């Protein structure tokens, strides 16, 4: 059993394999009073191994993350599958189907903006409403490239990426973006959590500017995305 701070919530993990504790090393806390504790059964670990073909420890870590993200819904927080980078104190999220350029986009922003760029998380950040603002938090789960750290910034925009022959970005309304947004989110299974989760998702789509972008692999794409999303911050 260990305790960690994730999205400013102290959570306990009743673990079996050391892998998950090692994964969470930058998030450990001495506090022994978690808001809740998650544990994973052997059956759940075996089921995960069947789908992901991975080690027991890795399977446990995936199950732990899924469980704690669903429990975090009660704290106005949820998992969004995307990459998040921060520039000058504001976070920007990039969502795209797996393997279609999130990591590349991070690299392009770094080429364009250098040290002004902080990677919050390359794959699985947690979003949480705090005092009326949606904050993007780093998590120990950050994709194959292991990009990101234990940092958090208010989210200034979400960009849904597609590969294209030229760079085009446009602001998208809630109903246009809803199905793509929901596919990036981990849906709860119990009714009460689902209700709360959908309220949070709706609030995110209503309050955070969303964009659709088709782009090439170029710093021009990063420049267009950054400039558009930065301008979008002021309404």
């Amino acid at each position, binding site marked *: 059993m260990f305790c960690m701070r994730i999205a400013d919530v102290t959570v306990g993990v009743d673990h079996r394999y050391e892998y998950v504790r090692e994964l969470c090393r930058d998030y450990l806390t001495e506090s022994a009073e978690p808001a809740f504790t998650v544990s994973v059964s052997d059956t759940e670990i075996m089921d995960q191994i069947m789908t992901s073909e991975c080690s027991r420890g890795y399977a446990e870590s995936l199950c732990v993350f899924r469980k704690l993200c669903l429990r975090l819904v009660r704290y106005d927080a949820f998992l969004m599958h995307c990459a998040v980078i921060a520039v000058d104190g504001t976070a920007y999220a990039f969502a795209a189907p797996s393997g279609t350029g999130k990591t590349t986009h991070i690299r392009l922003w770094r080429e364009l903006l250098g040290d002004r760029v902080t990677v919050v998380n390359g794959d699985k950040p947690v979003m949480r409403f705090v005092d009326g603002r949606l904050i993007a938090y780093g998590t120990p789960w950050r994709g194959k490239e292991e990009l990101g750290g234990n940092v958090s910034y208010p989210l200034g925009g979400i960009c849904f990426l597609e590969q294209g022959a030229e760079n085009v970005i446009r602001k998208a309304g809630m109903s246009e973006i*809803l199905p793509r947004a929901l596919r990036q989110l981990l*849906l709860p*299974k*119990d009714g009460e959590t689902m*209700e709360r989760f*959908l309220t949070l998702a709706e609030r995110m789509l209503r309050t955070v500017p969303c964009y659709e972008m088709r782009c090439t692999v170029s710093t021009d794409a990063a420049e267009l995305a950054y400039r558009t999303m930065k301008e979008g911050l002021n309404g």
Partner: protein
Amino acid sequence: MKVYRTKKGFIIRSMGDEYLIVAVGEAAETFNGFIRTNRTGAFFWYELEKGITKEDLVRKMLDKYEDLDEEKANRDLDTYLARMAVAIDVEERAE
């Protein structure tokens, strides 16, 4: 007489200008996703939650939407039921 009814575990919720149907509890074990629908679709859903025959639902549609003729109502309802098939049960009941 066939009675159409929403399956246990499927719930509807407004989301912006539209509606989402999602699965919770046991239903979520087999259906992990969402179905989008509009206000008319939500009207059908609320009737289907109570359990209703196609004939009765068509009648309600005709009452509610003045411009609608019976043939189009039937066609719209069939399209809707086909799209919602995963979330709707059909019970055979004696008249």
